[in-house]
């Protein structure tokens, strides 16, 4: 069936802003349930044949991650008393295309564990933070994690330490890489456990899609065989096939209009030519990500919502969480070739919750990676990781050995939600559409930094245990200055005074407005949030369908 076509003046059931990890799922679920859906996506609809391995275009010229070169400057500051400055590259990074960042992610899909949803109750208050329990439990979300496994396509192997699951993985894990073998051997030496990384990448053909060919270009790139389980590959084709969904690409939303009675009535957007249109809908779902969703709410202020649409709590844009990240590199005697295949194949979760006796809150995991995600240019740009040489013969000769003979053990960890870490509208800088630029204010809580240091220490022990030389570590010890995990900026909760959406992702203050993306997350998990974003999207869509059938949208 061909994709649907609706007139903007025709009131559809749902308009969805964004076709990423969450938007693609919501579009597919609603349209397959027979509801009329228009999806507005600011980027293009790339096809498999459009995907390249061109590092100059993709990484250096912002082909997917639009930044200042593409007319989308962003500003950054650490503290609210500072004036934010325009940065050379996007601060909050996300892919602008159908599939959103699920197009260019590396598909490391860790389920959150039961503790993630109730951690505040278990460990107590952390003063100065907005650390709270979720309004839902792991058990409530579990069926939707399983839905992600089977509907999106997952490869993995359940470990005894993993959270309980109602159904096994559909596909076996990816074959181990040399770097994974090194991490596994190191873990054994230290009495820890490295087990197969779960991936939203098909290890074998599944659901009419091809299995992974191990090309090595996952992170930052589209998968040219469609083995990566992006929304674009796994969800949007079915939404369009339903005959109830129209996808409008290169459409940038300007604002969401509300009526005098406080309901959302239409979504105003520019098409590629810069012509303004307005799509009427019974309900609106913002799936624009943890940066763009709060920006759109701010841009949609009105006399009824002077601080931004649905922002009576004042929580819109706040509690931004990037997840901590560390990298510990080591050299090995023989070729590792970590640039081949998926970024990582083994993960250690022995420190999912760091013992409270260390005096700080935190936890996470350690996996193994290539030093530059397998990218030659990015690898060379940063200079020799081990000798420090950045030009000349020594530099060149170091590169020749380091690219193939090294790998990193990377930490992925918790971020505490803080009011002072946030997304707001820049008062001066504007983007190509004249909209205020995204302004990010971010300085890690000391416990985030202590957690990162903890993972560096463990990773160095692992490197030593497996006989690496030239061990060097790096992390943002004076605070992270950007991120790709855009979490927490429209948090979910039961209390309208302290949260933006309810437990079903409906805005507390606007009955026909939903926010479904990384912004809903109450806590950021341990470093791999996308599976939880997708599970929440399946769950929210279920409730939207039920509400629509009851006439409650």
């Amino acid at each position, binding site marked *: 069936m061909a994709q649907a076509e609706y007139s903007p003046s025709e009131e559809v059931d749902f308009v969805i802003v964004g076709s990423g990890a969450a938007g693609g799922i919501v579009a597919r679920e609603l349209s397959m349930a027979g509801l009329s859906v228009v999806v507005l996506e600011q980027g293009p609809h790339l096809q498999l044949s459009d995907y390249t391995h061109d590092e100059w275009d993709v990484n250096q010229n912002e082909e997917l991650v639009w930044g200042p070169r593409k007319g989308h400057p962003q500003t950054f500051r650490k503290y609210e008393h500072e004036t934010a400055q325009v940065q050379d590259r996007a601060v909050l990074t996300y892919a602008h295309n159908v599939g959103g960042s699920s197009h260019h992610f590396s598909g490391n899909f860790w389920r959150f564990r039961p503790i993630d949803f109730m951690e505040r109750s278990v460990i107590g208050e952390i003063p100065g933070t907005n650390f709270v329990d979720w309004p839902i439990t792991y058990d409530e979300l579990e069926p939707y994690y399983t839905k992600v496994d089977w509907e999106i396509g997952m490869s993995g192997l359940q470990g005894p330490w993993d959270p309980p699951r109602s159904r096994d993985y559909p596909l076996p894990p990816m074959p181990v890489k*040399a770097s994974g073998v090194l991490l596994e051997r190191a873990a054994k030496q230290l009495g820890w456990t490295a087990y197969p990384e779960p991936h939203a990448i098909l290890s074998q053909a599944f659901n009419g899609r091809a299995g992974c060919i*191990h090309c090595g270009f996952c992170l930052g790139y589209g998968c*040219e065989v469609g083995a990566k389980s992006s929304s674009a590959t796994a969800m949007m084709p079915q939404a369009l096939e339903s005959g109830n969904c129209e996808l409008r690409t290169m459409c940038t939303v300007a604002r969401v209009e509300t009526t005098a009675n406080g309901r959302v009535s239409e979504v105003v957007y520019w098409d590629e030519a810069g012509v303004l249109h307005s799509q009427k809908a019974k309900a609106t779902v913002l799936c624009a990500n943890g940066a763009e969703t709060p920006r759109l709410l701010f841009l949609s202020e009105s006399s009824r919502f002077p601080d931004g649409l649905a922002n009576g709590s004042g929580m819109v844009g706040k509690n931004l969480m990037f997840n901590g990240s560390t990298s510990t590199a080591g050299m090995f005697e023989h070729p590792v070739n970590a640039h081949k295949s998926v970024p990582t194949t083994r993960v250690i979760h022995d420190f999912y919750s760091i013992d409270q006796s260390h005096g700080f809150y935190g936890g996470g995991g350690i996996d193994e990676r290539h030093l530059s995600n397998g990218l030659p240019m990015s690898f060379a740009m940063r200079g020799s990781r081990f000798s420090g040489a950045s030009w000349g013969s020594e530099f060149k000769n170091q590169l020749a050995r380091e690219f193939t003979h090294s790998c990193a053990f990377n930490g992925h960890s918790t971020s505490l939600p803080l009011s002072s870490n946030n997304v707001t509208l820049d008062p001066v800088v504007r983007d190509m559409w004249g909209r205020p630029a995204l302004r990010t204010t971010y300085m890690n809580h000391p416990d985030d930094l202590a957690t990162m240091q903890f993972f560096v220490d463990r990773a160095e022990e692992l490197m030593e245990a497996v006989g690496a030389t030239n061990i060097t570590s790096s992390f943002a010890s004076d605070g992270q200055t950007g991120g790709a995990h855009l979490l927490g900026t429209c948090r979910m909760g039961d209390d309208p005074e302290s949260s933006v959406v309810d437990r079903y992702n409906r805005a507390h203050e606007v009955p026909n407005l939903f926010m479904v993306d990384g912004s809903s997350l109450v806590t950021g998990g341990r470093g791999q949030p996308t599976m939880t974003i997708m599970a929440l999207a399946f769950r929210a869509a279920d409730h939207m369908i039920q509400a629509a059938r009851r006439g409650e949208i």
Partner: protein
Amino acid sequence: MSESTISRRAFLRAISDSAQHSLVVLTLPSIALAAQQAQAAQNNGRAFGTLSQDEAAELEAIAARILPSDETPGAREAGVIYFMDNVLGEERGEALPAVRKGLSDLQAVANARFGNSILGNLSDANLDTLLGEIEESSFFATVRYLTIAGMFAAPVHGGNQDEIGWRLIGFEDTHAWAPPYGHYDAEYMERGE
């Protein structure tokens, strides 16, 4: 182009293939020399679209100190200067005025210090000294950036000719792999760890 040049290029390709795409093993200076001569001949006469011949020669002289031609080919053999010429006319056109200014400033320093304003005429040691002194400058950062980008960008952008940059570091433009990928996973499979 002379008969002997073509045969050197064919020789270079044959050597490269037999070395399983790794130029790291090409440690014989004579082979490196053959590679350099072949590449120089290949590039000879190619027109520049953005840079003048003199500017190109000077920028190439700097690029050749950032990624020198020694036991293995460097920026010169990879044709990095053609990448620079392309992108300074397009995606990095905004950098061109600063690159030109930085170049003429450096030539003035060279003239004052060594009595020769042509960077390409300086000894490697003298040019390295000058570059070492401006290591922190935005001019050097830009030229270094363009050199590395040109060395490792897909050849379609003008540099990384014959995938020299990629082969230097052991990266292969192969779109599919099968395990084992490296030494340790091969060992793991063999031992059944």
